[in-house]
């Protein structure tokens, strides 16, 4: 892969022949040729041609950690918006509390945020989430921001390098949901710093060597304070 620039592709762009290549995610095959199906970044890895989307809704995968916002409390479950095309169902059996029938509103109500895990995605794309896992709970305090779900891997960095960097320099608690929602908690100045860095990562997500530049940015911020 070239190190200069990531190539942007648009839907229906010709990417290669079926011979010698495998059609990966974000592509489709017609008459022995591989085409891109969405606006995205081209990535070729071991004979697989993939298109990583630039924009679009979050495509839920089982086991992902996400941040959801409760839309509705029903008698024995909640409907939670996780930025997927469909609202996700959170059943009372999937929360750590002992909830009586019809008492769901006492625990989570419209507008509350939760950290959750995707429990199940079925063929009809009906989504179920759960709070029964380590470190999953209702969010109290802090700040929630949003980036494109396709840019989440950039924010986390290789083996979590980018996110570790942000935590180290700002002493904030940060939780990145795979659906693009990010929860940040800390003192006000630190939150502003993290937000600034996140916006920079979002803007320059196509560039190489981003982690190093973010480190410089954060170091500079610290000097300014001193």
């Amino acid at each position, binding site marked *: 892969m070239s190190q200069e*620039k990531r190539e*942007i592709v*648009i*839907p*229906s762009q010709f990417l290669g022949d079926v011979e010698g290549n495998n059609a990966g995610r*974000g592509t*489709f095959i*017609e008459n022995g040729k591989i*085409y891109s*199906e*969405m*606006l*995205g970044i081209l990535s070729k890895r071991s004979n697989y041609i993939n298109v990583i*989307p*630039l*924009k*679009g*809704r979050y495509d839920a995968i089982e086991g992902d950690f996400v941040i959801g916002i409760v839309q509705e409390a029903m008698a024995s479950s909640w409907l939670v918006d996780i930025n997927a*095309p*469909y*609202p996700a169902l959170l059943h009372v059996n999937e929360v750590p509390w002992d909830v009586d029938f019809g008492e769901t509103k006492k625990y989570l109500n419209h507008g509350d945020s939760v950290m959750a895990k995707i429990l199940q995605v079925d*063929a*009809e*794309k009906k989504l179920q989430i759960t709070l029964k896992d380590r470190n999953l709970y209702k969010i109290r305090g802090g700040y929630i921001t949003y980036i494109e779900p396709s840019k989440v891997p950039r924010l986390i960095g290789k083996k979590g390098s980018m996110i570790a960097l942000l935590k180290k320099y700002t002493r904030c608690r940060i939780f990145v949901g795979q659906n693009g929602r990010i929860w940040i908690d800390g003192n006000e100045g630190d939150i502003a710093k993290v937000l600034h860095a996140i916006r920079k990562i979002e*803007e*320059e997500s*196509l*560039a*190489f*060597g981003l982690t190093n530049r973010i480190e410089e940015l954060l170091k500079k911020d610290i000097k300014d304070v001193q």
Partner: protein
Amino acid sequence: MESDIKLIDDNGKRLDGRSPDELRKIKIEAGVLHRAEGSCYLEWGGNKVMAAVYGPREALPRHTQNPLRAIVNARYNMAAFSVDDRKRPGPDRRSREISKVISEALEKVILLEKFPRASIDVNIEVLNAEAGTRCAGLTAAGVALADAGIPLKDIPVACAAGKIDGHVVLDLGKEEDNFGDADLPIAISPRTNEILLLQMDGHLTVEEFDKALEMAINGCHVASDIQKKAIMDKYQNAPEVK
């Protein structure tokens, strides 16, 4: 409609100085609205069109959902100030027809099976009308869909051909549309030349029809290149590494 206006002069030039197979000037800008997931502003001659895409999101009311695939709701609307006399706002017979044919054209290019039970909503707002708004609207919708990151088999594009003073010409202007003999708007999938929409107003012989169709398809390809360039411009010029 009979008239005294001469639509083609002795040199074969049209009223606005175009040759028979020339398009009006097209300008496309992608991603102009922040609230919509995908958007496009398009100027096609005197037409000014804004398209915005929302979704895929759960289709409501529930009975409209299809458990196997997404549905497409295109809504074509003309602003009250888009024409000379004030247009009475709201959907009418004409705009409902156009909404329907555009929805059906878009259904053919979107990979709907990826989003069961969802709807993809496309709003097409005509701000200024000057003949050929359905083509301009569909072309803008194509760019907006790509901008929204929706999986597509192709970016749809539309263009019209027609007949004025006995000559087959490309992309009718306002007077040509009002006083001409026939109008043939089509939409195609430019990669395969598949026809997504074809309507005709007026009369054409079989030979004239074939010629007009070929001309319109060529016009579509010209417009398609402008569409693709507009999307590329928006995303390729994102900040690069120094």
